[in-house]
């Protein structure tokens, strides 16, 4: 099963390494991780997604709670939350593929951030599954470089 943890932590040095170290030490997976400051400068929010059996997901929550730099852990329900990821991709094109690629961007709401003679630099954000789909769709045109963020999530 999938676990989405929204983890409020002290905005201090060493906290990210303590949290990721906890996952490494206990053999938990980190599928995605996104970290950023919150509205309070002294607190950061980490969104961590992980997969594992029920016991593992429960243990992750408990072990996160046990960490003293962790202020609050919330387990988010995917259906009741907004989950977003962003992807940046340089996708190559030629005279034949240029139009369908631009149409694909229009249909999916992806933004063309830069045009060069060889590639389009495309930005796309959506829920994690749509991001997967989008990557599959542009793959056929030839991806030169791709970068994807971790999930950020918020309860509706």
């Amino acid at each position: 099963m999938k676990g989405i943890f929204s983890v409020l932590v002290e905005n201090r040095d060493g906290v990210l390494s303590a949290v990721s170290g906890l996952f490494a030490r206990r053999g938990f997976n980190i599928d995605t991780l996104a970290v950023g400051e919150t509205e309070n400068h002294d607190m950061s929010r980490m969104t961590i997604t992980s997969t594992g059996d029920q016991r593992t997901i429960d243990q992750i929550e408990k072990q996160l709670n046990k960490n003293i730099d962790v202020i609050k852990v919330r387990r988010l329900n995917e259906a009741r939350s907004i989950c977003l990821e962003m992807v940046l991709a340089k996708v190559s094109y030629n005279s034949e593929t240029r139009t369908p690629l631009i149409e694909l961007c229009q249909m999916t709401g992806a933004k063309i951030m830069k045009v060069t003679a060889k590639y389009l630099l495309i930005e796309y954000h959506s829920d994690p599954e749509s991001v997967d789909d989008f990557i599959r769709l542009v793959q056929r045109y030839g991806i030169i470089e791709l970068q994807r963020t971790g999930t950020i999530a918020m309860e509706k």
Partner: protein
Amino acid sequence: MNGAQAIIKCLEAEGITRVFGYPGVAIAPFYEALYQSPLDHILVRQEQSAGHIASGYARISRKPAVCVVTSGPGATNLITALATAYADSIPLIAISGQVSSDLLGRDVFQEADMRGATRSFVKYSYLVKDPDDIPRVIKEAFYIASTGRKGPVLIDIPMDVQLKKLHRDFAYPENVSIRGYKPEIRINMAQLRKVVSAIDHANKPLICAGGGVILSNAEDTIRNFCEKFNIPVVHTMMGMGVMPKKHPLNFGMLGSNGKPYANRAVGRADLLIIVGARLADRAIPQPESLATKRTVIHIDIDTAEIGKNMGPSVPLVGDAREVFSILAEQKFSAADQSWIDELEEIKRSTVDKRVFSDRFVNPNTLVQKLSEKMEDDAIYVADVGQNQLWSADNYIMKEGRFLTTGGMGTMGYSIPAAIGAKLCCPDKQTVAVIGDGAFQMCMNELATMMVNDVRIKMIIVRNGYLGLVREYQYNSYDAHYIGVRLNDWPKFDKIAEAYDIDYLYCSSDDELDDKLDEFLDGDRPCIMVCEIDSEDRVK
């Protein structure tokens, strides 16, 4: 006041009267402040021992104890002791000197990233960058170490922070406020009612007590509860001392190194009440299967322990002492005497089929006789290896303490831990029992012992081998013994002589009584070597 002086003030405010340590340049400002303070310093011979001595001291005083080391190798030498304390939930405050903060990260002389290196072995760690933070950090460190599930806390202090003056007037905070740490647990009453109902419905209840019971000072509370409702008890190795050995409701230590009848008691019980035990592999080989055949109540102060190794039927987060004080006030019908009789019968009919050599001292007899002869409130420190398992198996617990490292199993723990225990309670008879392998890991501390007039007694269970590894090679690798022979050195009599310690030698059961009497007589430090047959095994 500079940072170093502020540390001393804080330690005094916490009631600390002595620290255990080893100096070096990066911690020199602290030592200068120590020089000007009334605090005692006990110089160890290697930093790991500073941690183990503090551990022995903390276990007996039931309060955090302080060890101090310098940066780099001094600090890394301490890590094994921190890991040991962490595994056994012992409250320690470790203060390590660090290179100046402007040099951090440049790999200068004796720089080691201690926060990074100890992350998974401490409950929390600090790198202090501003001397004005020192009072808050030390207050928090003591609070974190001694509340909730106890454990070691590291405070890494760069040299310049020790030297810099505080900008504010020194004031030791009265309160602690840490957003991410709220150890006061309000017991969940709905869960408690489920516990009560499970106990009420059980025909064959059994308590399994772990080290958490001792850490929570709950021995009396649990004993009262068991006596009131006639509930039998088994315990883990760290739970030795929850019940005296001869208590009619005590059915011994469970686990792969425990009493077969204790394990059979677990098998027969329809309700198992686990308290303050993490159910590691040595206590319960297949914890998942426990709750399939019986109701399991798991009581622990650490939420993360519950469900980590086993999914219990009824979890309850709370302090053992508090939980059992409440439980003792409930109205249960006392458990049926036939259940106790059944366990008695199992105990009586369990035949120990192990055969021990009669050429030398029988290790079982040794531990039995020794513990019988020891004072009622004595402290017994078992090291690690066969000596530890023979100790746990045969020790006749009265009202004293049995200290060992059950979690990490760190060889060479017993002598420094015994030194710490004896320093804390000089009036209590303190005996360390150790193998000839582990002795050589910590015999440097005989000097610490003599210099500080710490009068502990030591029994070296000698068989010329790393016995437990040898036994493992016998059982698992067709007796292909490799890397386990200690040969004939050192000459322990000469070691004793070098440190002006009394020395006794015993090589047969016949002379055991007399030798033990002589060994325990008076309070001078004494080493007694007991010759054991290397073929004698734990199992």
